[in-house]
């Protein structure tokens, strides 16, 4: 009797679990850091992640004052925890023209992963997701694939492939 081929199932990373089609901006309208943060927070507010957009925006601006989250190679990962965030979330946004983000290497940012979370006392997942994003986009071909991907599902597949051997 034929048996079904065994399919090895991989446990998804926290990053993959948090990537949602609704929290994807295929092309940012703005090109300056401050306006881009505003655009992304407005998107979070429309999806009831940010309870008060102004408060969430302010905490992200303060985080940028602490040190730019533009890590270089066209990537920015703004992140902050706020009382006015309803749930942990990751918003992914692309910019083909690039965003001035005060990045470490001075180059414009093309991929922006925004992480927000409520101020829970112990939230190791928040930091793990930060590390997972850094790992997922460390290679230039991967960044290119994410930028060229036709839709959100294709991006998610590219990111998932970075963790397949774990």
């Amino acid at each position, binding site marked *: 009797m034929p048996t079904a081929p065994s399919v090895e199932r991989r446990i998804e990373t926290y990053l993959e679990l948090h990537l949602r089609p609704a929290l994807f901006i295929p092309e940012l309208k703005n090109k300056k850091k401050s306006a881009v943060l505003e655009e992304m927070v407005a998107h979070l507010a429309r999806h009831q992640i940010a309870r*008060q957009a102004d*408060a969430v925006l302010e905490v992200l601006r303060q985080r940028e004052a*602490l040190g730019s989250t533009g*890590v270089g190679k066209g990537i920015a990962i703004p992140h902050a925890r706020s*009382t006015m965030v309803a749930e942990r979330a990751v918003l992914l946004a692309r910019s083909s023209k690039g965003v001035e983000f005060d990045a470490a290497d001075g180059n414009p940012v093309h991929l922006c992963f925004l992480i927000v979370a409520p101020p829970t006392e112990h939230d190791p997942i928040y930091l793990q997701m930060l590390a997972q994003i850094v790992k997922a986009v460390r290679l230039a071909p991967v960044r290119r694939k994410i930028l060229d991907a036709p839709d959100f599902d294709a991006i998610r597949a590219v990111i998932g492939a970075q963790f397949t051997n774990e």
Partner: protein
Amino acid sequence: MNSQLQALVALQDLDLMIREAKDPKRATQEEELGFPLGGMDKLERTRERLAKQIDERLLQLYERMSRRYARVVVPVEGRICLGCFIGLPTASRRIADSGTVENCENCGRILYRI
């Protein structure tokens, strides 16, 4: 949400960020991932400015409770305080003198409605 409560929320968020950035283990983790944390003095100055906007008694209450709780300002959802998860009585209690800020009768945390 009134302006005093908004300022308290901003202060709480900023305090959390400062606390995490000052935590050596946490700061090392962020810096190793490529996030510099050199702007602490800017955050401290912002905190000072923000604290001045808050009614003195309310600020004292916040500071006192911060020593006990990591989160002092918490939401109320369906009459449940999301700080201690105890139901609130129908008649809400206002903090004396502030007139505009409500606190939980069980844990004392400052509440905001969502």
